[in-house]
């Protein structure tokens, strides 16, 4: 599906509003939309909402052989997907330019900043290491996917626990979650992306652009930073020239935003930990907004089972029992048999020539193929003796009257091609004889 195009007056309206330091949703220039983090029942699963943008992250792990160049390090793998649910313009399973860009940025932000201790993921040096896979699905696109994805990824990684492993000699046993408490990853720091969009060749700047704002912006600057005010990655795209002061100003804003967001993540993680420890209810089912009128929840509903058995018996009794008598198959040649008297196919049919008239190109092709095969067959003539020559008649007489049926069939249904198999077999036999 195509994206709805943005009309010129909409574009002008947006730009005008930005010039007047106003935003569509009433935010100030440096304001983020509301950020909400909810966790699933699984470890390493979270949904992050920034305003209406919604992203789902799930971390999973697997034991694999390490890379040859780094035999003692675990592998981190990121996979961001732009689901077609998020926007009609996204096509699932297609490598669009935006997708490649986002994935690359995510890798630079989280893998290259070495925020996860990959050495602790080594099980047997050079043989088995944990591969940590982060799947991020964009569920609703309302701008600023990058920030949402980076928050979701680092939150999920901090929330994730991998199963414990034991090594006895050469045997590596992976303990189930019930057997041994799973182990969290060691997270050194939490890099978080902050996006700045620029308008009018960099004159105006907005933090956390929404989808509309993204469509009219000239350029984008993404700064990934952790709460220690260390820049992990910085990227400017869209082809705008920025002054040194602008970048510095942005990094200052980013440091404030990152501190706020990190605090939020830690609080969310702490809450979830507490609920799990206390044995309370957790998971997405619990975080459903109950006060909204678009949402409804019910309790466990019992299903009546009283007269189920009678009902089932009644239905079975009312139906005719399957007939015991079945038609017997006809074995026309060793290894070939036929059952049923319905529409006959043309196997074991003598008169192939009768069909020759009403076949076009396909037949020619088939003939070509057959010729080729014949040649190859001639070469290995000796091996072909499979069918004894006595069954020549057997093949033809299936039932009395079948012959008649065949002929009738052919005249009625001119499209039915005799499969070349019949012909081939005949030829084969002649050669044998």
């Amino acid at each position: 599906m195509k994206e709805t195009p943005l009309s010129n007056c909409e574009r002008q309206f947006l730009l005008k509003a930005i010039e007047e330091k106003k935003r569509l949703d009433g935010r100030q220039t440096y304001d983020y939309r509301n950020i909400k983090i909810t966790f699933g029942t699984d470890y390493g699963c979270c949904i992050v909402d920034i305003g209406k943008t919604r992203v789902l992250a799930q971390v999973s792990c697997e034991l694999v052989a390490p890379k040859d160049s780094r035999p003692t390090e675990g592998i981190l793998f990121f996979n961001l997907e732009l689901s077609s649910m998020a926007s009609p313009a996204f096509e699932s399973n297609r490598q669009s330019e935006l997708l490649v860009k986002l994935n690359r940025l995510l890798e630079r932000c989280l893998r290259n900043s070495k925020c996860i201790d990959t050495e602790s993921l080594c099980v047997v040096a050079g043989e088995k290491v944990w591969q940590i896979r982060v799947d991020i699905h964009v569920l609703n696109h309302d701008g600023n996917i990058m920030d949402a994805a980076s928050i979701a990824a680092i939150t999920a990684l901090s929330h994730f626990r991998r199963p414990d492993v034991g090594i006895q000699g050469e045997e590596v046993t992976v303990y189930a979650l019930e057997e041994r408490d799973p182990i969290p990853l060691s997270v050194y720091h939490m890099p978080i992306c902050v996006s700045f969009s620029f308008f009018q060749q960099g004159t105006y700047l907005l933090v956390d652009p929404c989808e509309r704002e993204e469509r009219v912006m000239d350029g984008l600057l993404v700064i990934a930073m952790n709460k220690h005010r260390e820049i992990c990655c910085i990227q400017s795209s869209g082809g705008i020239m920025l002054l040194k002061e602008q970048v510095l100003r942005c990094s200052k804003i980013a440091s404030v935003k990152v501190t706020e967001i990190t605090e939020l993540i830690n609080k969310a993680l702490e809450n979830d930990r507490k609920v799990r420890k206390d044995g309370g209810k957790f998971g997405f089912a619990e975080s459903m907004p109950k006060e909204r009128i678009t949402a409804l929840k019910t309790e466990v509903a019992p299903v009546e089972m009283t007269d189920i058995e009678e009902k089932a018996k009644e239905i079975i009794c009312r139906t005719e029992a399957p007939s015991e008598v079945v038609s017997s198959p006809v074995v026309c040649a060793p290894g070939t048999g036929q059952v049923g008297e319905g529409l006959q196919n043309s196997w074991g049919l003598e008169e192939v020539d009768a069909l020759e008239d009403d076949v076009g190109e396909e037949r020619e092709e088939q003939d070509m193929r057959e010729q080729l095969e014949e040649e190859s067959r001639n070469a290995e003539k000796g091996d072909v003796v499979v069918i004894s020559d006595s069954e020549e008649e057997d093949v033809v007489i299936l039932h009395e009257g079948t012959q008649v049926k065949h002929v009738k069939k052919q005249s009625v249904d001119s499209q039915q091609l005799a499969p070349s198999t019949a012909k081939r077999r005949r030829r084969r036999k002649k050669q044998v004889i």
Partner: protein
Amino acid sequence: MHNARNAMEVESSSTCALREFGCEQSLLSRPDGSSSFIQGDTSVLAGVYGPADVKVSKEIHDRATLEVLIQPKVGMSGVRERAQEQCVRETCEAALLSSLHPRSSLSLVLQIIHDDGSLLSCCLNAACMALMDAGLPMGCLFCGVTCAIDRDGRIVTDPTMQQEKESRALMTFAIDSTERKVLMSTTKGSFSVNELQQCIAVSQRASEKIFQFYRDSVRRRYSKTL
């Protein structure tokens, strides 16, 4: 929490139960219709786009083209998802009056949020709620019910992942709202004819509860006029 629930269900198995349901509609801003359906811990998010323009190669001259995508949480969708997509798509096609929107496309995307058993039935329920939210014309509603038969031959409706693993047969039906007929059926494991008929009967009973839930949530949604 899981264990507590399982223990409870085994005790009360003579009258089997559906886990607690939850549904939220219109929760995403971009799709034309969206819903999230929750059955116990199993959760599926659905989004519908359409009717919209269709690619010429996929155009059907007398009705709308429906595409269904099921996206697993981890990894790419594979053969299993393709088979499930087929089931969901053909069920939706039976319910939708797609001839009212000829030469257009409808696309339904289902994102698995959490799988704790009865996934396909949850997908069907989420799909139906999303189609309703999108305001697409439908001849009837449908719902999905999963039944498991455990080792002792007892029927468990809406099984959890654990119960699915312990079962010897598993069936998922889609039931329509007008005549309680079986729209879709897919099974795993072997079972007798009697067991099948019992499961169909149980699913038809269970569908009443689900349709009642549909009705309640729609009633709640339109309880205030804006």
